[in-house]
């Protein structure tokens, strides 16, 4: 069967069963490989995307449940003000090392800033604790979120 998805503002058609997790539809069916596989059980956050603006783990999200929703991935998040400011801060502060987890980190951070424009440390902890980074870039992630938040102030 086929599902129609709205991804980064575009309609995409995927010929898959309803219960296939969104992650594999994005990566293997649509070839959008920016969203990463890390654990498969919503423990690491590498697969984070936005569904109607909310950060979710696409590895455990059946594709059938997001038909009709607006999906944003790392490939499209730069078109949002929060996503663009997060990406800029990530580069300014040299957050990235291997980079594999950073799609998910950026998606979680962008969702945080979209809902909480001036997050404090506990907001950052709450929003980002689901994203593991094996390279240990957490110190810079925290600093970059604060910088992105400050940059958004007029």
């Amino acid at each position, binding site marked *: 069967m086929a599902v129609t998805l709205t991804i980064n503002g575009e309609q995409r058609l995927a010929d*898959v*069963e309803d219960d*296939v*997790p969104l992650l*594999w*539809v994005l*990566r*293997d*069916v649509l*070839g*959008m*490989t*920016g*969203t*990463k*596989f*890390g*654990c*498969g*059980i919503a*423990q*690491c956050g*590498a697969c984070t995307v936005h569904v109607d603006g909310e950060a979710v783990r696409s590895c455990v999200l059946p594709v059938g449940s997001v038909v009709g929703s607006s999906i944003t*991935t*790392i*490939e499209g998040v*730069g078109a949002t003000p929060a996503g663009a400011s997060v*990406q800029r801060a*990530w*580069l300014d502060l*040299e957050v*990235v*090392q*291997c*980079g*594999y*987890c*950073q*799609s998910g980190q*950026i998606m979680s951070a962008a969702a945080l800033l979209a809902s909480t424009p001036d997050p404090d440390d506990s907001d*950052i*902890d*709450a929003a*980002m*604790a*689901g*994203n*593991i*980074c*094996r*390279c*240990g*870039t*957490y*110190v*810079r*992630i*925290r600093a970059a979120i604060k910088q992105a938040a400050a940059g958004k102030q007029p």
Partner: protein
Amino acid sequence: MKLQVDGISRRSLLTGAVAGGFLLGFRLPAGALTNEPVQPPDLTGGSFAPNAFIRITRTGRTTLVMPQVEMGQGIYTSIAMILAEELDIGLDHVSLEHAPANEKLYANPAFGVQATGNSNSVRAFWKPLREAGATARAMLVQAAADAWQVEPDACSTAEGRVEHGISGRSLSYGELALAAASLAVPEKVALKDPEKFALIGKALKRLDTRGKTNGKVVYGIDAMLDGMKFATLAHCPVFGGKVGKVDDSAAKAVPGVRQVVVLDDLVAVVGDHMWAAKQGLDALDIRWDEGEHAELSSANIWASLRAASETEGAVAKTVGDVQAALASGETIEAAYEMPFLAHATMEPLNCTVHVRPDSCDVWTGTQVMARAQSEAAKAAGLPIENVTVHNHYLGGGFGRRLEADMVSSAVRIARQVNGPVKVVWTREEDMQHDVYRPVYRDTVAATLSADGKVAGWKYRVSGSSVLARWLPPAFQNGIDFDAVDSAVDMPYDIPNMQVEFVRAEPPALTTGFWRGVGPNNNVFAIECFMDELARKAGMDPIAFRRGMLKKSPRMMRVLDLVAERSGWGQPLPPRVGRGVSVQPTFDTSIATVVEAGVAQNGEVSLRRVTSVVDTGIAVNPDTIVAQIEGGLIFGLTAALFGEITVAKGRVQQSNFNDYRMLRINEVPQIDVHVVRSGEAPGGIGEAGVIGGPPALRNAIYAATGVALRRLPIERDLIAGKRT
């Protein structure tokens, strides 16, 4: 700066190689050292390629070929900086390419094989890369001087141009490429005076990060090919076991499942996407032939390692008369034990393969290009020259990708599949079929002199030799130089000492290099024991260490600085302690202070970490800070949580729920200070991992008086629930 290291540039590299012959044309004379810039200039392709690392086309396009792989450590930027420094070209004018598999051209001079590890990229390539850049520059200058009929000394270079200051003439490197390519490669070239470095020593932006923030960068797991299928696999859960019987009827009924591949030691399911393959694998009814290790447990492994550690080892170092020194006073003894660890790279193991009757293409991210190629050739039953490995950025390496087992198994699966297939391991498979950081037991005995110094020191490492399996010629006289690294070259001035190695291989499990390698184990044992000795001597841990560092001025300096910057000696609340460690690892001197709090129930919280680093010339200082920050978190993660255990021949951990990682909310303030130094660059990619665990353990010792001797941190011991 254009970063073109994904599909397009790989194709152009190969096309160029075939059309122009400049890469295939590289020849090393017999007996030449690896990486010597002796490749004859190529004229047919129109590129100036004086060595294996630099190509400049007539249009001025400059390509730097990366002999070491980028797995997060920032090495692509550092290598580009070193080459560009001597070449005198701006980084915004260069493209980077992954080196192809070629042991002769791209072997790491420290190992003699094409490998990225042991924090050896800048250390080993510092001189060859400077020479490569300087050689290219000298030839371009000569070409310009010839054209202008002036002396080369009258010419200068900057930003990819040769200039003749007196006449004001100037030519770009592209304009000079053809003429330079016809010149003989000079045997000796002058290197730049470090005082004149324009790039090296500056905190430059990394060249690989933009694509890592917008989803565009391509890791091995992202390889996509027309007509590709997706597969996932299961090895026998018991180490060394084989496939018995497989009933695949339910699996084949799963939507999207295309094929079940049954091999001697593993089963794979091939489908239209990973989920179909995974559902298919779960639906298989597999009867495993578990083999001889079906009853193996951690208890067995530890019992045999403890027994082995009581035997004499091969002597790796002797100074003075250790027996006499130990007999001269009270002998203090301890044994430290380190667990198996998994690598858990964020990018799970994967390898994409297309086997055709006469060729095999492999897409993956590997730390060992040539080994990946030769293992693929073996598995494919093809000559090595018929195998092409397409390397990628690595979503973490940490030593796991120094192995090629994931290439080998993927090729064996792909031989059964018509067309390209991407084999992706589940996280569970990745964790349960790792090559594990070995268990180690370190026994140490020491005596103190009346003035509070170590008078005698006998140290024995017992554990697996990864090196003996991985690079057999390097294992000599029973000594694994990695396993005793940082034990044979302690910074402390100890008049009587001996270091031994007992090789004790665990049954069934394969051991592997793990970021920080041998020094992780040795620095932990040494620095923990130093704190116990300091307490015995009634001395402050830093004062005790200082007393033995007179011959290690660089270490003394970082230790003094870390004391100052960490607030050492300032009052702390109850059940909070500071611990220190020093490490001489990878030609880098680091001192680290961890401040930690200990709850009554034994839970430990990190409050602050301070490291001071002397790594010689800091090629890209911000990368060094980042590597230490991240390395500290990597090491402290292992110290707090990391342990792989075995029961019934199987690994008991499976995913991030039971193999815990530090998360952002658990990470404290981390201050890293890099001191200025003119010494040769040291290694940095692994160094940060090492000092955190002993400093944390010593902080707990300071806070509670409990001298922990095993990792991970034993919370029940701290809480007094066990002694």
